[in-house]
């Protein structure tokens, strides 16, 4: 994962609420066995309509997406995060995110920024013609005007994002504690340890 510290540039003023992962990337695109190239399938049903923000040359290559409540609800498909990444999106700003999507985004180095609706409204307005700036270190979103909005971020996620850490690698370093847990479990709950090994 690439380290993230600041993100600046134009933002798609999308704004829609309850954007589900089927909208971000439809099932037809899930047949791939790689992570690349999904940007072309992103927001297909939205882009089918003329005048949509994603095909507006004004926002081409924007690294930020601004959306409404409950962004990324529905399916667990990480393809949604991969599609955003492939479009060049490095941060999504919304009032709230679905649990699974925000985890998937984080694991791909996409920052999910939660801000209250009135601040989202203001950013939607600014984003029409101007860039936005996100600074992870100070946890702020700013604009070329005097706007300065602060956001919360999980300390562990912040640490991983800023240092580009691989979660699997980090957990593998905990092998000893995991092994200890497994040994204890084998003693107390042997019935749970067999899994697909059938009983003779």
């Amino acid at each position, binding site marked *: 994962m690439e380290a993230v510290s600041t993100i600046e540039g134009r933002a798609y003023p999308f704004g829609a609420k309850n954007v589900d992962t089927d909208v971000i990337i439809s099932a037809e695109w899930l*047949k791939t*066995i790689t992570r690349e190239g999904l940007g072309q399938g992103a927001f297909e049903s939205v882009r089918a309509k003329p005048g949509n923000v994603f095909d507006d040359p004004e926002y081409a290559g924007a690294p930020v997406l601004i959306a409404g409540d409950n962004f990324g609800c529905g399916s*667990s498909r990480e393809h949604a995060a991969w599609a955003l990444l492939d479009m060049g999106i490095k941060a999504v700003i919304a009032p709230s995110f*679905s649990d699974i999507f925000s985890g998937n985004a984080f694991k791909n180095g996409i920052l999910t920024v939660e801000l209250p609706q009135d601040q989202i409204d203001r950013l939607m307005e600014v984003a029409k013609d101007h860039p936005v700036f996100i600074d992870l270190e100070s946890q702020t979103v700013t604009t070329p005007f005097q706007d300065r909005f602060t956001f919360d971020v999980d300390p562990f996620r912040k640490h991983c994002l800023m240092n580009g850490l691989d979660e699997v690698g980090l957990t593998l370093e905990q092998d000893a504690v*995991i092994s200890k847990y497994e040994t204890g479990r084998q003693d107390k709950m042997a019935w749970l340890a067999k*899994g697909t090994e059938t009983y003779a």
Partner: protein
Amino acid sequence: MPNKPRTLYDKIWDAHEVERRDDGTSILYIDRHLVHEVTSPQAFEALRMTGRTVRRPELTLAVPDHNLPTTPRLDDAGNRIPIADPMSAQQLAALERNAPDFGIRYIDANHVTQGIVHVVGPEQGFSLPGSTIVCGDSHTASHGGIGALAFGIGTSEVEHVLATQTLLLKRSKSMEVRVEGTLGEGVSAKDLILHIIGVIGTAGGTGHVIEYRGPEFEAMSVEERLTVCNMSIEGGARAGLIAPDETVFRYLKGRPLAPKGADWDEALAYWKTLHSDEGAVFNKSVTIQASEVEPTVTWGTSPEDVVAIGGVVPDPASFADPSKQEAAAKSLEYMGLTPGQRMQDVPVENIFIGSCTNSRIEDLRAAAKVLSGRKKADNVKWAIVVPGSGLVKQMAEDEGIDAIFKAAGFEWREPGCSACLGMNPDKVPPGERCASTSNRNFVGRQGPGARTHLVSPAMAAAAAVAGRLADVRELG
């Protein structure tokens, strides 16, 4: 000092916490991992690239379901019919290669035990009460119906579980959905969960794990509980739970991968402790009166867009929230419906009975009961039944249920996810409606431009007979 009363969620979480860090993140041990062909190829590829291995291969079970065509898979000579779509074929081939390469038990597409992961897990006794279960699929919440803490994960987490048998997570908040009283005649578990989602909304459970409580859940069969917990994610909750009881224990006893002998006795003793303690506190609580639940259908493009079958299409202006007004207007445009239109006047051209929500034997029995001696209406062009697994299909055939469906004009298919998400050839044509027993009515979910009305199996059967959305109670 007596121990602090704990919720069922607390008990399962506590038993699986390997380590809790100062920042509140825990390493949670995962007991059971289900893998299918769509969300796993990139995880296996990452393991290969980093030279990592699978920590506990026996705790993962792989089965293809999303891509498989539901038309016959073997020719008359018993040879495998190749999948026509090269992308789908490639994804299936990847799982067929990855599972043995990493020492994981694989259920072949043509084996009688193949089916939708969330049907196969409980059916094989792989999913057990009190266990943690994950799968790269948001409907993993289903397994909460047997009392497991089960939730969907992304592909990076699939890789994490394969490599470490754990996940890094923060404890969720707990939410109680209490249902008081009993459901009326002709009202099913599916109607109840649709109603619940209508009440709490699609983000109502975000950040929470739901426990469904009350006499109605206690009276439910395992199949009905799986239906309820399946749709927890549609209410925003990553997991849903129902405390395991004798109904669950009876269901699991003797299943191929369920504990046997002394292990069974030990497991059973533990399972009996799995319930929220008296006085346990939930972060959030919602109470629903069962008597208010009617056979329910969706009118829009979000699972929260529900209405009783006797109701009408709502007027977008009737919603208090301006953004909901806008969303409702957009939904109605997509769905081709007008405010005030009676739901029972909405004609349907397609019927889909299947999916991890409603493809188990009880679901098929409920639909067949309505269809017995009846035929689908002439305007219904396409009606299919996709059993949840080969074993469900076999059981239904032994009971003669397949004959009832066929006589009613339904196609009797091979098991898989099918038209729930249309990754295989089973799609609803653009602009057409489908009364569907699946879980999502999102824009384009069943195919580009498809219009989905979520219903229970009995209501899907009633819609097939009437050629429009219909109240199963009025069919007599």
